[in-house]
């Protein structure tokens, strides 16, 4: 009986080791730089950083990509109830200076174009468009749109030239929560904490570490509303023509003025 028990234990340990090894083969090896960047109190787990790094590098190395998805944004109503508002999103990126972003719902349809010189916003609902001169790189244009015009470009973190550095800029802790499904796709689940927001990301398990879900928790706001994005499809083929990033006004569209963000006193 003791012999059988020992054999059973040995078999169990062997299978457990195999399972761990199977999971490990899908994880890129931690680099020495990643390990060295971990804070001394181990609040930035190497596995989380490594997985995030691989997903970000995958995006950064793609000369062009497109994705489709949905965003869900929480907002507190007058009674303090959290209401979620959804949008369909489509983004095309062609490095270093091409961006097209479509945000739509039955109530509102907007499209953004950036071609290295100009940001154009089309309000499809009213057939109005507006333009503003922008810096020549996508990163700087994104920052100018936000700083000068107060424009929110959701999921723009995917389009910046260095997604990893952008992502961890203010991260204070990182954790790994194993594998979970996102719309049926097994994904690594990571969580990051900062002083201004917390965020979570789900990265597809497999040879293409694609981002499948992204959640930002505005933890310092009443009710801690969340922004959630599901990415339902990715296209990494370079099929986007440069002309796709140049705006052509629809028939009968009217131009309106783009106002700058009012500054504080």
């Amino acid at each position, binding site marked *: 009986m003791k012999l059988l028990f020992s054999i059973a234990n040995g078999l169990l340990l062997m299978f457990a080791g195999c399972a761990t090894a199977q999971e490990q083969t899908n994880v890129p090896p931690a680099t020495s730089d990643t390990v060295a960047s971990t804070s001394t109190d181990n609040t930035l787990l190497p596995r989380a950083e490594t997985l995030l790094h691989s997903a970000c590098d995958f995006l950064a190395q793609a000369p062009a990509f497109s994705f489709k998805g949905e965003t869900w944004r929480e907002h507190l109503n007058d009674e303090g109830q959290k209401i979620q508002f959804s949008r369909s999103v489509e983004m095309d990126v062609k490095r270093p200076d091409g961006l097209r972003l479509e945000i739509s719902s039955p109530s509102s349809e907007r499209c953004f174009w950036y071609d290295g010189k100009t940001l154009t916003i089309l309000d499809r609902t009213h057939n109005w468009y507006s333009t503003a001169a922008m810096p020549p790189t996508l990163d700087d244009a994104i920052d100018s749109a936000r*700083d000068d015009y107060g424009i929110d470009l*959701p999921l*723009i973190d995917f389009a910046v030239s260095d997604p990893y550095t952008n992502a961890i800029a203010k991260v204070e802790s990182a954790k790994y929560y194993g594998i979970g499904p996102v719309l049926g796709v097994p994904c690594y689940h990571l969580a990051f904490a900062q002083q201004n*927001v917390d965020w979570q990301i789900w990265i597809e398990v497999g040879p293409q570490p694609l981002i499948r879900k992204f959640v930002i928790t505005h933890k310092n*706001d009443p009710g801690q509303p969340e922004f959630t994005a599901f990415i339902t499809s990715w296209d990494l083929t370079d099929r986007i023509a440069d002309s796709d990033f140049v705006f052509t006004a629809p028939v009968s569209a009217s131009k*309106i003025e783009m106002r700058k*963000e*009012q500054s504080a006193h």
Partner: protein
Amino acid sequence: MKLFPILRPVALPVSILTVCALCYNLPAAEYGSLRGNNRSSGPSQPAQHQQPQESRQPEIRQPQPEARPEQRPEQRPQDHPEQREVPQRPDEHFQPAPEQVDRARAEAADTRRQDIAPERQQSYFWSDYHRGMNIDRLPGGYRRIGLRGHNYFYFGGVFYDNGPSGYVVIAPPVDAEIPDLPPGAETVVVGSSIYYYAAGAFYLQQPDGGYLVVAPPMGAVVSLLPPDATESDVNGIAYYVADGVYYLPVMQNGVTAFEIVPQP
């Protein structure tokens, strides 16, 4: 003994701290990206020991005089209305402090850039009413508002007058005062003043805590047109007109908004 040599070393740090305190009082903008959120926040602090989830206290904004007060449910029966005669003191409005104006402006911009106004509007009582609409009975909890010797009626952002078959929805009468803002009132900052806008009416907070209907302020930028605005093309430019006030479409915070402009 001269105090300035003593005060000078502390004046600059104190002023910096004051500015920082004011900056940190601004609401956190809610962007749909880390890059957008991170540019709103100040410089990151050195990583500390990770706080357990239970110890994190979400910041609860205390009610400010200019903030939207909690909607009080009104269940008064129709035969017990409240009559208020408003003295004509349009100059005695609540004057917000500069930091309150900045906060209101930041909150308004943050709400606008989320582009959820069209959906939110549909949840408000006043969105189902338009000027000239006839109803046979007032909603429960209405208020009677006396103004210049005439009685109007009010509920949830909608003003009524006596009509041919009961009551008729009217444009909000200027100088009428209500105790609470209508549901979904949009914060609109013009210069150093904070207005509230709902159902085509602009309100200014009064020293007694009530809200006075005021004329639409020039330069105000609102997310939604008044209910009965009509399109008017002037020299090839599309305007919208409501009660003789002209609204010009503009792109603000990445979404279409409407600015009150002089008649073209």
